[in-house]
């Protein structure tokens, strides 16, 4: 009985690890078919993509640059997912986080970096968290579905930033809408010389490790999981479900906000209009693909970052439209959903209920 049980556990564990890989492989295969339809050679296209994104110095740096905001925002979406909440608002939280970091970055000019940079990151976290908390509050106090509120808050955030960089925050004599540069003491340092890759990636890896630990061994992680798995039972056991949800959505917003911070402090060093090319929505796909596992998010984000970074080169050298890359991203999510559904069917029948 015990041995059979252990085998079953091992099997299901293997399957859980394997199926995202299968999903990715299937998505790449269907992507290849699409390329054939578009009249291009999939082999040439993929080899251009992966060679560029992984083996060239600048390409790899670009992959890291793209991975960073994806990783941070995905961690945010994932934390909410663990508590059973769908945060579709990572995009808006990225914008707000960028704003928060910019304001702190502009506010001081003579602080040492060890104080200014953490402060600027904190500003981004706080703005993102506050933006998330609006949705959390509306859910907890007013019963509004967070799926809707987080999604709609995206537009408000995005247009708010557009207004600010077109108006009050617009840099003097700027030809297009962007703000002044933040003080150099708030820069996230570049990690690979002559490229844009910055230290934000370390922040992402550190936070992912921290979250993995938090869910594995802390009482906080246990509480979040309890609320996510069965809020009714959690409530009956005396856990404050509302407080947990509010807390988690705020944290989720804060983490997504850090993605905005890393774009502003590490990459652009100032605030641009529409600076996020949909990282917040990719984050949703990444979090789902990683199945709530904050360690797996690192790999998944890297994969998505790689696709984004190699896409342009692929277009140039193999004349495959970039939109195929978006199709592959979408297909990956689709195949993950299919594998989840299949697993539920395969689960062995119980002898008696």
């Amino acid at each position, binding site marked *: 009985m015990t041995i059979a049980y252990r085998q079953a556990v091992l099997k299901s564990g293997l399957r859980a690890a394997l199926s995202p890989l299968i999903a990715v492989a299937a998505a790449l295969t269907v992507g290849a078919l699409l390329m054939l339809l578009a009249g291009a050679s999939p082999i040439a296209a993929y080899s251009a993509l992966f060679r560029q994104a992984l083996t060239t110095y600048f390409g790899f740096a670009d992959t890291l640059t793209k991975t960073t905001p994806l990783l941070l925002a995905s961690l945010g979406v994932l934390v909410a997912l663990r508590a059973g909440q769908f945060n579709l608002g990572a995009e808006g939280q990225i914008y707000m986080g960028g704003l928060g970091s910019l304001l702190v970055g502009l506010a001081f000019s003579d602080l040492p970096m060890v104080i200014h940079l953490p402060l600027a990151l904190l500003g981004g976290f706080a703005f993102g968290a506050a933006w998330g908390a609006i949705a959390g509050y509306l859910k907890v106090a007013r019963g509004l579905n967070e799926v809707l509120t987080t999604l709609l808050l995206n537009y408000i955030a995005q247009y708010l930033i557009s207004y600010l960089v077109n108006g009050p925050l617009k840099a003097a004599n700027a030809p297009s809408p962007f703000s002044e540069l933040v003080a150099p003491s708030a820069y996230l340092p570049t990690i690979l010389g002559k490229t844009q890759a910055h230290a934000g990636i370390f922040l992402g890896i550190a936070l992912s490790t921290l979250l993995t630990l938090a869910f594995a061994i802390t*009482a*906080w992680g246990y*509480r979040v*999981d*309890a609320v996510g798995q069965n809020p009714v*039972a959690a409530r009956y056991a005396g856990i404050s479900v509302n407080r947990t949800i509010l807390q988690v959505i705020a944290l989720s917003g804060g983490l997504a906000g850090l993605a905005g911070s890393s774009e502003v402090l590490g990459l652009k060093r100032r605030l641009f209009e529409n600076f996020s090319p949909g990282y917040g929505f990719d984050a949703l796909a990444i979090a789902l693909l990683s199945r709530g596992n904050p360690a797996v998010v690192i790999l998944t984000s890297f994969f998505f970052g790689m696709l984004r970074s190699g896409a342009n080169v692929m277009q140039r050298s193999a004349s495959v439209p970039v939109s195929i890359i978006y199709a592959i991203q979408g297909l990956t999510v689709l195949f993950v959903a299919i594998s989840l559904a299949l697993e539920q069917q395969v689960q062995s029948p119980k002898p*008696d*209920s």
Partner: protein
Amino acid sequence: MSELESGLRLVGITKQFGPFIANNSISLTVPTGCIHGLLGENGAGKSTLMNILSGLYQPDEGKIFLDKKPIDIKTPADAIKHGIGMIHQHFMLVPQLTVVENIVLGSADSLRLNIKAQAKEITQLGKDYGLEVPPLARVGDLPVGIQQRVEILKVLYRQARILILDEPTAVLTPAEITAFLQVLRRLAARACTIIFISHKLDEVMAVCDEVTVLRQGNVVATRAIAQTNRTELARLMVDRSVEINTRPIPQSAGKVILNLKNVWANAAAISAQSKTHAILALRGLSLQVRAGEIVGIAGVDGNGQRELADAIAGLIPIQKGTIEIGSEAAAQQPIAYIPEDRQQQGLILSFSIAHNLILKAFSKLPFCRRWILQRAEIAAHAKSAIQTFDIRAASAQLKAGQLSGGNQQKVILARELAGEPGVIIAMQPTRGLDIGAIAAVQQSLLAQRSRGAAILYISTELEDVMAMSDRLAVIYRGQLVDILEASSATLEQVGALMVGSTEIKESLATAEKLETGVSPEVKALETNSSATKGKGERL
């Protein structure tokens, strides 16, 4: 019964899951027009057998004969084709659709959906079998008893002649059960063959012609009801003589621990319900429970029991009145609450047994130190709880969802009774359990009583609550009608109080009550179906 003209016959059905034999060469004969009871503890193999009949599982060995012809049931569609209909314990209805829509769902063979004609047909079908339903009412608005009729009609509408009912009375009120058993007899009289799965000996004795007892996958005995009795059946089921009516040994109660004064509260809208119902569920209820005393709350489901329990546990606010929990020990310990719905309210099914056991205390010593969960302490606690409460599981890492109902309830008991709580609220703690598990639950609670806990025992099963209580309070429309000494109260007396046949103010009367007649009630529901919405949560 060896000469079977027509009916259902199972011969040597065997089903194995890995090393576990769920059904071991089971043979069963049910002649047409008979009601055949299937008794057995959880895990005895009843559900497996029924799943084989309804096409969900394939037997490893054995044959099924219908009217002397061997049949193969490979899929649920095959089962329907052969006229076998399954009525599950948890209804398979779409609450947003009307009765007619639910019944014709999936069975319509033409593109045109003629609801009017079908409504007529269903009304006629209902009349034929004495299963009257309001055809155009939304199923979600109907009381559970009526929903069950819809479920049965759905099967009859598909021309089923063999009905399998899995624990059909678990969700019904006593009045609904009586009506339901009459319906079963009528169905049998009209040449339906019925397999009735139940834990409740009384119902099996009342309605079945024959009964088969399963134990650990084997047929232990088949008896004609006329030639057996409750005691024998109980013994056959568990293979040990259990005392069914264990009235607690009298003991002198201590001081008042739980004191409710004039409590008013709105109906709870805790679980999946979307709307808050501003309907008063408790109307000035007062009650005292002393240390070392079990006070039973008897009543028809939906008369405020749920809100009473939730209000004491602090899960819903009270509008007026006070709830005092009056001892130093009790003030420090959280109230032990065994909720009504094990799977929804009591457990996190995807968590392990060990993690379910710490659901209430996970953030405190010894399970948590400086925000870190203490793995060793949690494992040790699980091990001892599994032993103390006789939870039958191979490992503490097993998920709660993989346990049988009885073992799930034991996990909840182990969690709630840990740390000597001063006040214990037990809401339907034995519902749906087999006799062995019921005895275990009752003994745990009696042990707590001897220790000096103040226990509120809420159950809609009258005999259950009478057997366990020192004093018995009867709840009706949010008020306690009377508080009796359990030793001198009679079933008839309590039964009369439960349906409000004393001097209850009729000003409270609305269309929402269902314990009276059938047909006028159904009509009332049809016209005023929204009035029933306040009657607590439903699936």
